[in-house]
């Protein structure tokens, strides 16, 4: 299985949850600990080892928060 990773422009995340919903590997979650500049709990990658770099999160993110890298 391919290996990938995702980066977030944290302060742009509006916590819509679409990336979480559509990630096939269930590796994303809201970070309930932090609040970003917009007042939301931004998304973080919780299981970096499982991310395949499929880019579906980026595809579904309406706010260009996510950059995806792949090996």
């Amino acid at each position, binding site marked *: 299985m391919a290996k990938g990773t995702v980066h977030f422009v944290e302060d742009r995340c509006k916590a*819509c949850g679409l990336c979480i*919903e559509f990630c096939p590997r269930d590796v994303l979650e809201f970070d309930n600990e932090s609040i970003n500049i917009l007042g939301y709990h931004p998304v973080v990658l919780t299981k970096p080892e499982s991310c395949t770099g499929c880019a579906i999160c980026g*595809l579904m993110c309406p*706010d260009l928060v*996510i950059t995806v*890298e*792949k090996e």
Partner: protein
Amino acid sequence: MKTVFQKPKSLQDNKFHYCPGCTHGIIHRLIAECLDEMDIREKTIGICPVGCSVLAYDYFNFDTLEAAHGRAPAIGTAIKRLLPDRFVFTYQGDGDLASIGMGEIVHASLRGEKITTFFINNTLYGMTGGQMAPTTLLGQVATTCPYGRKAEWEGYPAHMAELLAGNEGAAYICRTAVNSPANVMKTKKAIKKALEVQQRGLGFSMVEILSTCPTNWGLNPVEAMKWMEDKMFPTYPLGEFKCVE
């Protein structure tokens, strides 16, 4: 590691003003990606509507105009006729295109203007606070059909893709959605195809894109995606309605 997904060049690096989960953002990006891939950013003129995407000129990274409500196709007509080698597209909501702008869009398609229209159908007027649009579903509640849209009172939903496909000047007419990764990919293909139809001078092209308005639907963004599939798809079937080769 190589970057497989990032912001396209045809978008500026500005935060969108859209509500959380509003799919206007996805559609902006898809258009920008297609322009990048076709390498036509510098030859493109985008015409933004009055609607939630009224500020799209702050996001697109190429020449843009802000149109009067509904008139984008008229503006696009003049630009394309005077600058036939440029790419001209209009980006219009359902209030903009199907209500006040009905005359302009029907005539642009009748005349076969070689422009491309991206028609964002979210079943209501997002910007002004959730009023009924011509595309509001039967039974759907909006602030100006507070008792739910009834055919008897408010008439029937407008099927713009079907309506325009009948016009000879229309070369490519398609309806897609952005409710799932697969549909987002299909939407991107349709956008590209529409721009190629323009490139080849075949006539008018339009992609009607079913989009969410979580705010005025009163749903969270994930529910909104489901609602689109459950409620909108039966009224607005996806597919190509016209494709002149």
